[in-house]
């Protein structure tokens, strides 16, 4: 199917469309990458470490950085006061009464929020100083669930905003109410999509320098765009756009949208440089990245379809709530509006209603993550399509067949404004069915079920948008607000092609690639235009805002490269070729249209011997400009700006064509669920793509495989977990389960190309499809596998063995009578599970003796494990210095302990909380003393919370650790009480009571 560059017949075939190897690779496989941390820095460059909030929500009462400044090698510490003096809050996509500064100023609102920056001679020394900074926090209640955040009386993250809902928009297209009223069926689904991220292996890197002589800032970073955010950064820094220079190195270790979130740290490091009066470098570490860089939005969706008797969907109704974390950080609420025009997906549905609410809660701010809104929409929509099939007793494939936009309808204007440029959805679905041998798969499922095994088949069909219309974010505004603000639209791509004095061709683009092979594809594009070998073309992707051509849409996101960027390169090359053709026509005495550029030569068609070498022709323009055709400007450098014509601003009816091109993906898979373990095994996976014209099929397949692996991760493994108090629990790659090669099968990939009429090369983006299609395809297959056993299910991702086992819900054998007390009720599965520890310890002492120990500070200090000092701090309250050591881990806590609800001698409440460099911990519970022969049975029943770094990196063992600490505590209590000192228990008790009177 694809061109084989080795075969003689294909040697003259165009470069574009070849599955050729990459120009990037020789450097990368020999360890000569140029990633941001590989670049040399100026002498005198210092290193930054960020102090981050251990609390999900707290008032920031004060910071004392002086102990840090006294540390070895520390040059400066940047705090919120500096940030307020030198910068402004970040602007966001929607005006909301909140301030988001580069550092927390009055409150911290998510675990990991930057609070201060230490700038030191190296990162090791900077981290040493972090521990010395004293911060006065007053914790506030945290909200971590969408339902809780939007409920009346919820703690407000930004009191001035009056609500945690910062945007609430309703949309209506066609006549959805009537469609629902008249429909034969209404089918409903609740969908919840979790927080996750595509976590590139390289984290963020920023090198920033304040240049006081120019009042300017200079940044080198692996920020990926969109460079609309350059405006956000410049405004925050209070400089004009040309006084912030931003450069991106040649190589970036993966982005998948995630490195959009580098932008606030770029601002932060600019300010750090200003404070330190030196360039500053920051290299993000993995814990920082997972905790505080970014996330996809978590979304709750109620979705309904009005369906006629034959299974045609007449209307859709969405009620969507995105939580965007603690601040509305640009470009949010873009996760909603990127997809808005194509909420009807691949289907011909005329009537649509949608309500989009954006909620804040105490988690990391969200942003671009590959798929960006698509995973959230399609998880709901494609699960709904399957539910329609079940409810109407139709085949899920048939439901899609009846509802797809038909080939003859393209370009198709969807209800909410997407102009689907081209496609043949039925044919692509048939491609997938053939490649999957669907009949055989159905037979396999039947045999498995007959044998009592759980086998399911699932599919998903998605429209993959690419080349974002930069105006789509204004759909979040009302038409009146838009009219006032002025229109935003377009997706300007820019490229420059230049030929030097020796005939060497150089291409520059405003793209910031992170592994997609842009250098190779650009070289293929330009090689075809000039008839050169791609190896002869140099492509410079080291984007520089001061030297390169660029505009609002610059950067590498929304899969814009193939359609827009490569298209702009093509246009620039054509412009330059037209100029060369004029020159050559004069030289060769022919018409410009007769000229051919091939094999490194330029000649008139039919007279290849009478041409000129490319380098000689181009040399003329440099060495002898006087010989150029009259009126022609000298120089060989052309810049093309391109924006797809179909990208208008949202109209007065809120219709928006949010993307310029729309690919199509149909996935079909078979899965088997192991009944013993709940593990989902992918038995067969076919993914069929139509991304318009493929510029390099090898790279296209690479994008599909990578997106598929991330889709499997989202479906079965990955989730950012938070505790009920907002503590983050997925801070390492042990906790956040990025799949290894053993979890990722090799999908079968099939292609069909229906070129886009709206991009210069007919190409569409192909980078995000499987992030959108794979999670619902797998979920549908799992639902199919479980349906015979448990019926219709609302499934939540990721479908870990734990979740699947819970769905299987099989009754387990009862315990033997002697172990009946181990049959505890299950803790709730929704939401964060508080650490609970309860148990009993038998003590050879009376309840009074036990109480006496608890109420006597000297004894209490011996009871608390690792307690070095216990000071009274009020009636029955104490301050304590407690070191907790479990295994290799040791943390020293400044603790407060309080006894209350004392009901001698039966019960009391014992609460403790503490903070350490590793985070906070608290425990609160009741002790009940049961008098028995021989002493006391002490019952304890506790809830504990552990936050900070220990929670972020040790969540696997938090339950066990909390239980162990409490068990040690109460064992110790038992030993203290039973090894009674000289005073009898009653004597000590009277003394205590006497003190109280």
């Amino acid at each position, binding site marked *: 199917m694809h061109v084989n560059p080795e075969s003689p017949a294909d040697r003259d075939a165009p470069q574009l469309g070849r599955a050729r190897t990459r120009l990037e690779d020789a450097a990368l496989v020999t360890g000569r990458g140029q990633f941001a941390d590989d670049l040399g820095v100026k002498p005198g460059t210092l290193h930054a470490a960020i102090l981050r909030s251990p609390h999900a929500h707290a008032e920031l009462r004060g910071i004392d950085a002086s102990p840090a400044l006294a540390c070895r090698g520390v040059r400066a510490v940047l705090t919120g006061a500096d940030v307020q003096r030198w910068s402004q809050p970040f602007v966001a996509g929607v005006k909301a009464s909140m301030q988001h500064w580069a550092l927390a100023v009055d409150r911290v609102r998510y675990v990991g929020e930057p609070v201060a920056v230490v700038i030191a001679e190296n*990162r*090791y020394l900077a*981290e*040493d100083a972090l*521990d010395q900074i004293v911060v006065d926090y007053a914790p506030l209640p945290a909200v971590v669930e969408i339902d809780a955040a939007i409920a009346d009386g919820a703690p407000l993250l930004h009191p001035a905003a009056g609500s945690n809902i910062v945007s609430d928009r309703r949309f209506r297209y066609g006549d959805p109410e009537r469609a629902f009223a008249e429909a034969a069926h209404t089918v409903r689904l609740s969908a919840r999509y979790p927080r996750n991220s595509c976590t590139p292996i390289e984290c963020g890197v920023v090198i920033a320098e304040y240049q006081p002589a120019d009042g300017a800032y200079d940044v080198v970073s692996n920020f990926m765009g969109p460079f609309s955010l350059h405006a956000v950064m410049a405004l925050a820094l209070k400089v004009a756009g040309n006084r912030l220079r931003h450069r991106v190195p040649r190589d970036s270790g993966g982005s998948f949208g995630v490195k959009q979130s580098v932008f606030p740290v770029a601002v932060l490091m600019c300010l750090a440089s200003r404070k330190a009066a030196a360039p500053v470098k920051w290299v993000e570490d*993995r*814990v920082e990245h997972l905790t505080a860089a970014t996330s996809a939005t978590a979304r709750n969706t109620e979705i309904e379809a009005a369906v006629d008797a034959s299974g045609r969907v007449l209307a859709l109704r969405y009620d969507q709530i995105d939580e965007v974390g603690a601040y509305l950080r640009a470009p949010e609420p873009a996760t909603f509006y990127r997809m808005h025009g194509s909420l009807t997906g691949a289907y011909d549905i005329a009537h649509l209603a949608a309500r989009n609410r954006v909620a804040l809660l105490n988690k990391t701010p969200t942003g671009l993550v590959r798929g960006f809104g698509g995973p959230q929409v399609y998880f709901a929509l494609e699960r709904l399509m399957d539910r329609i099939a079940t409810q109407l007793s139709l085949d899920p494939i048939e439901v899609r067949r009846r509802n797809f936009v038909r080939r003859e309808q393209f370009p198709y204007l969807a209800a909410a404004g997407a102009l689907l440029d081209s496609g043949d959805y039925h044919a692509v679905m048939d491609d997938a069915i053939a490649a999957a041998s669907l009949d055989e798969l159905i037979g396999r499922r039947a045999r498995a079920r007959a044998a009592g095994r759980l086998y399911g088949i699932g599919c998903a069909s998605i429209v993959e948008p690419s080349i974002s219309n930069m105006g789509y974010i204004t759909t979040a505004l009302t038409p009146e607000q838009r009219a006032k603000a002025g229109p935003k639209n377009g997706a300007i791509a820019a490229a420059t092609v230049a030929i030097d004095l020796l005939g060497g061709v150089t291409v520059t683009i405003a793209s910031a690639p992170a592994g997609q092979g842009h250098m190779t594809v650009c070289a293929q594009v330009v090689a075809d235009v000039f008839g050169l070998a791609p190896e002869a073309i140099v492509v410079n992707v080291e984007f520089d805002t001061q030297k390169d051509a660029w505009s609002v849409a610059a950067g590498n996101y929304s899969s814009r490269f193939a359609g827009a960027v490569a298209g702009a390169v093509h246009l620039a090359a054509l412009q330059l070729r037209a100029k060369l053709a004029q020159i050559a026509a004069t030289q060769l005495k022919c018409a410009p249209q007769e000229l051919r550029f091939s094999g490194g030569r330029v000649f008139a068609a039919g007279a290849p011997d009478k041409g000129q070498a490319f380098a000689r022709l181009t040399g003329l323009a440099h060495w002898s400009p006087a010989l150029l055709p009259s009126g022609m400007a000298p120089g060989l450098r052309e810049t093309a700006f391109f924006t797809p014509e179909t990208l208008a601003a949202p109209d007065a009816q809120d219709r928006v064509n949010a993307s310029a091109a729309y690919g199509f993906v149909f996935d079909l898979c078979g899965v088997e669920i192991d009944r*013993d*373990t*709940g*593990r989902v095994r992918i038995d067969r996976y076919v993914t069929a793509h139509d991304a318009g014209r493929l510029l390099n099929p090898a790279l296209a397949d690479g994008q599909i495989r990578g997106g598929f692996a991330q889709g499997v991760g989202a479906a079965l*493994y990955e989730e950012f*977990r938070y505790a009920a108090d907002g503590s983050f*629990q997925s801070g*390492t790659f*042990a906790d956040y*389960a990025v*799949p*290894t090669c*053993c*979890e990722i099968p090799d999908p079968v990939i099939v292609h069909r190309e229906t070129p886009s009429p709206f991009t210069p090369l007919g190409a569409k983006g192909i980078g995000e499809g499987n992030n959108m299609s794979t999670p619902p395809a797998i979920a549908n297959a799992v639902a199919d596998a479980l349906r015979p056993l448990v019926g219709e299910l609302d499934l939540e991702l990721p479908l*870990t*063995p*734990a979740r699947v*086992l*819970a769905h299987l819900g*099989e009754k*387990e*054998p009862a*315990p*033997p009578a002697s*172990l009946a007390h*181990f*049959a*505890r009720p*299950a*803790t709730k*599965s929704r939401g964060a*599970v508080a650490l609970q520890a309860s148990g009993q310890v038998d003590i050879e002492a009376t309840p009074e003796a036990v109480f006496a120990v608890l109420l006597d500070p000297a004894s209490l200090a011996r009871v608390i494990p690792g307690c070095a000092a216990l000071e009274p701090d009020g009636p029955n309250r104490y301050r304590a210095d407690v070191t907790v050591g*479990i*295994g*290799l*881990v*040791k*943390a020293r806590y400044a603790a407060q302990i309080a006894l209350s609800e004392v009901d001698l001698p039966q019960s009391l409440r014992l609460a403790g909380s503490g903070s350490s*460099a*590793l985070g906070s911990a608290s425990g609160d519970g009741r002790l009940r003393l049961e008098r028995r022969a021989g002493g006391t049975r002490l019952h304890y029943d506790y809830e504990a919370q552990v936050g900070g*770094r*220990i929670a972020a*990196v*040790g*969540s*696997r*063992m*938090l*339950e*066990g*650790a909390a*239980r*162990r600490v409490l068990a040690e505590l109460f064992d110790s209590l038992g030993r203290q009480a039973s090894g009674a000192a000289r005073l009898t228990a009653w004597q000590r008790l009277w003394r205590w009571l006497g003190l109280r009177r």
Partner: protein
Amino acid sequence: MKPAAFDLLRAGNADEVVEALRGRGDEVRILAGGQSLMAVLNLRLAQPRALVDLTGCADLREVRKDRAMLVVHAAATQASVERRKELRGEVPLLAAALPWMSHPQIRSRGTICGSIAHADPAAELPLVLATLGGEVVLRRARGRRTVAATDFFTGMLSTARRPDELLECVRFPLAGADTRYAFTEFALRHGDFALVAIAVAENAGELRIGVGGVADRPVLRRYPRLDGSALDDALNELAWSLDARDDANLSAQGRRRLVRRLGRRAVNAARETTGIAGRTA
């Protein structure tokens, strides 16, 4: 994430290690493979004053047969034992379990003794040692003592080793006559910590089943040869007896289920092969 500062002592032999620990056990950590300790230090979850590195101690790399035991010293890597040609015959359960441990690149450097000393409740090696009834030799300046596995693991990440003691070697009983072995575990991803791990050793007189990942230490149960519903009942009783708890990774009920199902699979595997079960999950 960079570690806090520490002094580094690079020992040349076991005597030097023991001397370095004398009187300073609370402040000094032993650096063997570093695959657990270095991650903890990089995360600043601990800040010891000094590390004593035993990777340069040739005498501590020794692995040898000693009467009825395979003796593995403190600096012997997991890989060196895994690649031992005779291992399948010497300690079949160890040969079966090692491929489940993390990843080959970790086993290249991680030590057998280090994993035992760390006593992670979900780790494979403590489970193997407990199931086989092995022992550890602890040495300090004053002398050595031998502790049986059942007494050595005292809780989550907790052992009988005193801070000033070096876990000098671990002793695995050699394969018993006519004894068959199997090992299996269930984890979210290939190489992850086990949610439940099962080790089985069975001969004519006894069926041993060891469970890891559920209680705070490996649990060994010894039964007569059981089969059919008697085996199911025993596995059910075993599953309940572990006092499993709900946690973020799996419910208690889920863990009990894995104990029953994987326990059955492991026993079947031991009985169906000549000695070792391959990976089953």
